[in-house]
């Protein structure tokens, strides 16, 4: 992976950098196009839920939003800091059960339980980080994977917090002052819970993206990217590896914890097995498909991973060669898995740098067609 591909839109082009205290600090946005893109994204956070009445599609999109937040966190660790991790679902689980404990059992408001979920997960990440300094690549991946098994075991054995094997209904309420995301009303209009949760989830995603974009422009963020690209060279240049690794783990796991808290209030029922290896692999797949070390890659990856199976399921029902439910033959789930897997292989073979790079190339191609020769 090149640093150009990995640094993201805000940091890739030297021309976009501005001088600040003698150090080149890239601007958050480079052009009016990227600003327009951000504005459009923010507008969609309001436009989509207020115009999509289908609770089904909103549930799917809420799941995508939560997965995107968790993947943005993992992307900090794996994409920007170069630490391969399969343990993100562990931190997401900490966030989920923390949300229920603080928001449900202790009845604290969201303004407390949401940050606390992130802080607890971040603390766990900070505790794990020193081990990462001694491990690289697949070794770190295996160690991080063990966190997932450990997490499930611990969660099963503290039923007073997690409900044990049976799991727990999530009673934390998603209210922020006068805004009740579970029963939102604007004027005389009332909206569904799913519409409110969309507003909450995707707004948090926007904040998290802004946070990560800014972190990657700081000294600590650049240290993460330097340690990823060449750790020995970075250390020679004064990057302190332990601090950098801890920073990456804390940020990644903290964001994972916030994703877990939102997952909990979206699902309303969680159990230890929710946060298993399959979820961890899914997050890794999201950042690889979307584009490692890019700001919007995890969002695109989450949209791909979340929406492709649903869309295939939607169209497969009308295909003539599909079997009846319950009978032998090709089911919609079978077809979904086949097409989903094939698309992943196809995308990554044609563009290993992910969906973000495909979008960039498409954008360049469109501009080249418009510009005079």
């Amino acid at each position: 992976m090149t640093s150009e591909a990995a640094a993201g839109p805000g940091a890739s082009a030297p021309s976009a950098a501005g001088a600040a205290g003698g150090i080149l600090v890239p601007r958050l946005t480079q052009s009016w196009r990227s600003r327009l893109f951000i504005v459009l994204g923010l507008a969609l956070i309001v436009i989509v839920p207020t115009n999509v009445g289908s609770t089904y599609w909103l549930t799917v999109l809420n799941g995508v939003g939560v997965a995107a937040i968790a993947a943005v966190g993992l992307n900090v660790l794996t994409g920007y800091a170069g630490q391969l991790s399969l343990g993100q679902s562990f931190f997401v689980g900490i966030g989920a059960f923390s949300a229920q404990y603080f928001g449900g059992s202790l009845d604290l408001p969201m303004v407390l339980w949401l940050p606390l979920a992130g802080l607890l997960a971040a603390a766990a990440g900070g505790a794990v980080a020193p081990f990462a300094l001694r491990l690289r690549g697949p070794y770190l991946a295996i160690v991080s994977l063990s966190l997932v098994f450990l997490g499930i075991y611990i969660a099963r054995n503290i039923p007073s917090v997690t409900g044990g094997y049976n799991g727990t209904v999530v009673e934390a309420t998603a209210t922020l002052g006068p805004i009740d995301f579970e029963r939102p009303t604007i004027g005389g209009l009332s909206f569904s819970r799913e519409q409110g949760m969309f507003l909450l989830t995707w707004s948090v995603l926007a904040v998290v993206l802004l946070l990560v974009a800014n972190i990657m422009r700081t000294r600590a963020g650049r240290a993460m990217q330097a340690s990823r690209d060449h750790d020995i060279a970075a250390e020679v240049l004064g990057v302190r590896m332990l601090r950098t690794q801890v920073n990456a783990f804390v940020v990644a796991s903290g964001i994972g914890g916030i994703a877990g808290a939102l997952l909990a209030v979206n699902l309303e029922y969680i159990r230890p097995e929710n946060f298993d290896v399959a979820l961890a692999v899914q997050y890794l797949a999201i950042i690889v498909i979307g584009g490692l070390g890019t700001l919007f890659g995890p969002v695109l990856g989450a949209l791909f991973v979340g929406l492709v199976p649903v869309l295939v399921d939607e169209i497969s029902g009308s295909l003539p060669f599909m079997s009846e439910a319950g009978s032998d033959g090709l089911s919609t789930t079978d077809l979904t898995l086949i097409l989903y897997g094939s698309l992943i292989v196809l995308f990554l073979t044609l563009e290993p740098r992910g969906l973000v790079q495909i979008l960039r190339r498409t954008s360049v191609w469109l501009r080249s067609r418009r510009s005079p020769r």
Partner: protein
Amino acid sequence: MSHHARKGFAAVAAAAALSLVAAGCAAQSSDDDDTPEGGATAAERELAAVPGFDPAAGVIKIGDILALSGPISATAKEQLVGQQIWFDKVNEQGGIAGKYKIELITEDNQYNPQLTVQAYQKIADEVVMLSGVLGSPSVKALIPLLDRTDALAVPSAQDPSFAKDPAVLPTFPSYQTNVTNAVSYLVSQDEKFKTARYCQLVMDSDWGIAVSEGVAWVTGKIGAPTGTIQKFAALDTAFTAQITALKNDNCEVVVFGGAANNLPSVVAAATQLDFQPQWIAEFIALATAFKTSDIAPYLTENMIFTGPGAKLDDESVEGIRNLLAGLGDTEITVQHVYGYMQAVATTTLLEKAVELGDLSGPGLRRAATELDSISFQGLGGDVTLGEPEERVLPRATTIYHYNPAAPSGLEAAAVGYQAPEGFDDHF
């Protein structure tokens, strides 16, 4: 503020304004009141259209969310076939109340609670209720949503916590009840089981915990000693360590709480170690597939199974007769029975709801409280209904011996057995 920044803010303002103007499409007035008219009696009231029911078309749509793919899809497909057989029978007779045909809409949850919620959201506006939700975790995940929408589902699960939940129409005895009945049955057959040493080989899950609760209760009741509890994960295929531990603990009865995919490996390990206790297993899926396998002799010699049903070829039992007629050349299994019983519970409830004149979610919940009980055409004990807190799960279990000559390898040794030792209220 730069020119582009001003343009950006203008765009946000315009988009926000547009979205709020358009919001009427996906919002409803807080003053809306779509509750049915309250003054009229049921007899006077026209059966109103609700999501999933169109009086003009004369069709009631119901949903079934089950694992049509994945490791337990074979089980789920048999349950679905069982349901469809009873719905077809009802439709042949004119439908619910003789005029409303039933149409079944299925969704695959892959035995995943999160996908279950998603699947329900997909069909919630198309069905009046769910005639099946496969798996206790999936049912638990769905209950908050069912409560919020005043909807109702029949669980394909045996967790006793569902018994008193207004969102659920319970159908089957609990795992604990089945274990209690099986142990009691053994004691009734041979006094030696009163003093035998009872051990467990259970899945490391809430299912395993439920089985353990049943064993602890019934052995306490009969005064039998208990031994080691060995656990395993759902996809484990190596059981040598657990079987060795059971053998070393001199276990004489082992209660197995696991799935059909675990069973061949358990039997292989037990055979290799020459461990031949009396086994008790909860329902056996894929029993038919084992009939010609190498594990059939061991199952025949050492195992009894619990489940609903009756003698699976006894046509004097109405449920079995209908199932055999609907299945044709396909061999009947206990999973067909499970599905059929869920369908019977569903149509009984729908009949009551139509009689009361309301097929909405609240109407169905009210119908469930108005029903005293549901009977299952000889396939299982009655479930006692009424107000949710008064409901009692069926207490009867059918005990099967393994016999390759019997339909799907299961020969009913005791139909509708109910432990004279009684049951914990929690079961």
